């Protein structure tokens, strides 16, 4: 099971370095890296400038939530890739490749293959039916109150767990690389994120994401090229050297023990593939483009960039096996046996130093931090939208609220979420954050995805079916995750082997269960309301296919 936990740890955005290295002691705090600080300060100055510019342009709710609907397909593809290439992918996956080799690639593939499915079945209808949140789509012909409440709760659960993981990761990265105390680090992230989102809304959030995506892709490409250059651009030679140096030798090219159990392999595959299609901060980006055609292009570019990026993380992981693993300078007390300086998620950062010295390390550290900042902003905006647009405007005020008030509620929510994120980030400093991201993917695949997909593609879905199916998925995914070894034994401290649910992810069971409940409670729904909802499907389907009736303002 420890392998399963190692993988959860990598999944967790930036699982706490403390996890691998033990509690961080003051003595391990590193010397201030001025390159990192200068590059990071330049990034912050640039993004604050963009936020100021974006604030001038943010006048309507559509500007605030959806950047005015005027983002191009290419830009949006890059921004989606930016949202998706969090520190989990960059530091976590490269670290997973570093420790477990091929197993890391299985993860990357799982993260990528959800995108074609989104393209073929969801992207165009999403754009044609929604305005600001995915609840707009799910509640298009169903009852707004219960469906939006369900979607908002699903969104907040997903977003919260992601957010806490990001904050903890950011705090520890800054503490280690910039020499700042943890609390300051968490406050800096929280305050910057609140500024971006409250003043600049989706416009600023999108541009911050674009800049960061370019930096991250550029930085990763550079490291990969420098690694390959040492082997005369012979990939075979790199792998051969890695097999020679890694303690597991040939075994780094085998799938690994954690997926030896078929149920684990399939459950993980389902959570990764379909979780993507239920992540609220990703779905929200489909409403920032003007039409279905741009939505399509977005997915194509996102898939391309993400696929390319995962190939790079694989090279980076193998590069670290060759250049970081045998070098005592990157290990605690100069001893290879004692683990990496800064914890198990740092191979990519040390590799940057190995191929490019202090300047490269500073650059990559600043990029990793910018990544966290950008992803945190996107997450917060989607959480704030769920509260203001779905809960406040639709459920509490039944739509009787003007746009200015709704946006004000959203800004206040951002402030509250920011403060909560700082407090929880601080409180959770020492906790294993891994389970939170695992939970986020399982909830997204088990609660958000089935309801969203069926609402668009199945005529028979009624409010009753969607609400019961959604909540069953939500509760079972959260429940089984808590009962899995990662939380039951490690976090809650029950004896090893006592976990009620023995598998790494619940999605293999909870996602089909959610679909089944949606189906059963829809077909047995004989109410007049249910019949009206089914009858309204044809008009919804027509709009989802053609875009006729779409918000006219979207075309400006």
């Amino acid at each position, binding site marked *: 099971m420890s392998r399963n936990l190692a993988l959860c740890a990598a999944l967790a955005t930036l699982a706490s370095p403390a996890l691998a290295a033990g509690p961080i002691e003051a003595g391990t705090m590193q010397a201030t890296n001025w390159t990192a600080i200068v590059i990071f300060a330049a990034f912050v100055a640039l993004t604050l400038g963009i936020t100021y510019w974006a604030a001038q342009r943010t006048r309507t709710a559509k500007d605030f939530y959806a950047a005015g609907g005027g983002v191009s397909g290419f830009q949006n593809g890059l921004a989606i890739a930016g949202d998706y290439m969090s520190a989990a992918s960059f530091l976590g996956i490269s670290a997973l490749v570093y420790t477990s080799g*091929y197993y890391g*690639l*299985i993860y*990357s*593939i799982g993260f*990528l*293959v959800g*995108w*074609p*499915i989104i*393209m*073929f*079945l969801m992207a*165009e209808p999403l754009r044609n039916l929604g305005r600001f949140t995915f609840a707009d789509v799910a509640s298009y012909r169903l009852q707004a109150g219960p469906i939006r409440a369900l979607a908002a709760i699903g969104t907040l659960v997903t977003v919260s767990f992601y957010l806490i993981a990001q904050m903890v990761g950011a705090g520890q990265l800054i503490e280690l690389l910039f020499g700042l105390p943890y609390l300051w680090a968490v406050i800096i992230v929280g305050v910057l994120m609140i500024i971006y989102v409250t003043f600049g809304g989706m416009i600023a959030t999108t541009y911050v994401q674009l800049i960061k995506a370019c930096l991250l892709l550029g930085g990763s490409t550079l490291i990969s090229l420098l690694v390959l250059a040492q082997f005369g651009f012979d*990939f*075979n030679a790199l*792998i*051969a050297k890695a*097999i020679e140096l890694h303690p597991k030798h*040939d075994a780094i*090219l*085998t*799938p690994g023990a954690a*997926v*030896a*159990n*078929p149920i684990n*392999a*399939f459950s993980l*595959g389902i959570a990764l*593939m379909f979780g993507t299609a239920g992540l609220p901060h990703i779905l929200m980006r489909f409403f920032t483009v003007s039409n279905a*055609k741009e939505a*399509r*292009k977005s*997915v*194509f570019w996102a*898939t*391309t960039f993400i*696929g390319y990026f*995962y*190939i790079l993380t*694989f090279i980076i992981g193998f590069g670290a096996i060759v250049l970081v693993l045998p070098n005592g300078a990157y290990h605690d007390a100069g001893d290879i046996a004692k683990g990496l300086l800064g914890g198990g998620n740092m191979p990519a950062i040390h590799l940057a130093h190995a191929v490019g010295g202090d300047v490269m390390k500073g650059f990559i550290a600043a990029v990793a931090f910018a990544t966290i900042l950008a992803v945190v902003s996107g997450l917060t905006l989607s959480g704030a939208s769920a509260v203001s647009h779905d809960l406040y405007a639709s459920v509490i005020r039944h739509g009787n609220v003007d746009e200015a008030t709704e946006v004000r509620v959203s800004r206040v929510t951002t402030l509250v979420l920011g403060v909560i994120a700082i407090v929880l980030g601080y409180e959770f400093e020492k906790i294993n954050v891994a389970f939170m991201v695992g939970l986020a993917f399982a909830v997204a695949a088990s609660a958000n995805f089935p309801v969203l997909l069926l609402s668009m593609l199945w005529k028979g879905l009624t409010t009753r079916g969607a609400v019961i199916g959604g909540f069953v998925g939500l509760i079972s995914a959260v429940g089984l995750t808590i009962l899995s070894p990662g939380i039951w034994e490690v976090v809650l401290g029950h004896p090893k082997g006592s976990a009620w649910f023995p598998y790494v992810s619940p999605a293999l069971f909870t996602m089909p269960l959610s679909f089944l409940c949606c189906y059963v409670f829809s077909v047995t729904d004989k109410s007049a309301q249910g019949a009206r909802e089914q009858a309204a499907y*044809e*008009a919804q*389907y*027509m*709009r989802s*296919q*053609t*875009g*006729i*009736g779409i918000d006219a303002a979207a075309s400006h």
Partner: protein
Amino acid sequence: MDDRMLARIQGDPNYQALVRERSSFGWTLAIIMLTLYYGFIAIVAFDPGLISTKVTGVLTVGLFMGAGLIVASVLLTGLYVLRANTRYDDLTRAIVAAATGSAK
């Protein structure tokens, strides 16, 4: 959207062609993608020895499968975009023109 307009669009042969073609093409590609990915997961789960079989030098079957899946994901989404940009957009324009034109 009133019912008469809906009925008119539903009767439009272009609309029927769009819905039929897009739905079958989308599901075909989705099933190809699902088969490739869960086929891969099945090999990982049931025949891990195949994954680590060497093909050339130290490069294994698993590495080529992994790279193949990444490339296939990009190619299949690209294929969908190509078809949608030509065929589906043309049909959609014709449907919208017919619907708004005759509504006046």
